[in-house]
């Protein structure tokens, strides 16, 4: 499992590439617990996760029902992203 700092850094770096994501620093994300604290709406987190799958796995990963409740807090979002990374086809 990647170090939490690596997971967080990966997430913040990805946010920086997304036009609908707020401009956040590593410290701001590290000190937040919930998606709402980051100022990311429930609609935008859906778009962000979809975009992450498109970018990292070429859209070839299906969203999983067990990820749904995890998208409310930062730890959960980081875990979802980690699972997407782990599931991404090697050739992508």
């Amino acid at each position: 499992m990647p170090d939490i700092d690596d997971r967080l850094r990966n997430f913040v770096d990805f946010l920086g590439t997304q036009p609908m994501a707020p401009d956040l620093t590593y410290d701001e994300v590290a000190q937040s617990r919930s998606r709402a604290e980051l100022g990311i709406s429930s609609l935008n987190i859906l778009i962000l996760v979809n975009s992450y799958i498109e970018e990292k796995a070429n859209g070839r990963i299906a969203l999983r029902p067990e990820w749904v409740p995890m998208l409310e807090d930062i730890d959960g979002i980081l875990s979802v992203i980690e699972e997407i990374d782990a599931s991404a086809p090697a050739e992508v």
Partner: protein
Amino acid sequence: MAGIGSFAYVVGDAEGRPEDIPGFEDLWRAVSPDTAFTAMGTGTYRKMTGPLVPYIVDCVAKVLSTHGVRAAEVDRLVLATSDAVLGLLGRDVAVEVMRAAGLTACVPAIVSLQQCCSSLEALRYAWGLAGAEVGADARNVVLVALDFTPDDRDRVKSFALFGDAVAGCLISRDHGGLTLAGTGLAADFSGMVGQDTFASRQAVARAALDQAFRQAGRVPGDVTKIFTSSLFAPIVSFNAMAAGQARELLHFQGPMTRYGHCGNADWLINLMDHTDKSGRERGALYLAQASAPGFFACALLEAG
């Protein structure tokens, strides 16, 4: 055994584009800050330019014409609409429709207060009127789902762009069609008051779907196609993920791009759009479903 068929729909006669709505960019920014509208997947919507009743009458005429059912042979008329539109209907709307459509021998009713899920509950009710339940004595029941938005500025929401449409079908003992195998309806009060979460939205969907599959004695893997609410593409993806549904089974994108979200008429329009393009597969199991803040409803329809 009754059958559900003779589907028909009538959309608003004028085509509009979201960007032509006065103050669209500000309206979109207010409901979905920092989100690009282009990611939502909506192209145009339809708008009714005249009174509602003629659109309903037109839809009823199309439903009856499929099998040549005479208006006087209709026992029941079931209207369904979402909460906001309920308040816009005049108290004589049923009489006006019955007079104009010639439905002079039927009993009218309206089903509402379940947002865009209203028409699926109306389907269950209509099926009961013509089906095998105690007291069921209707031979021909016309179901009509209707929704419209008079002020264009009210069309813009964070989960959908609203369009105007009327859609209907005939539930008849005299004519074949789809069979209603199971239905589900669940509510989430936190959603009704705008305090729902990912988890609560998932729970309400699962509760309704479990009801329907249990009643039908079927499993999600049996479903051939899913006709869902025509919400923005990311929302539909989320709803599918939450319910464990494969995205490729969903049919909504084409009608949503052309007509927007037509409230509780969506699943009917999407079913018709699919049937028009692909025909009806013998032995298919269709899942019609609708989601709205605080509600999730579904119906399993078996093709003979």
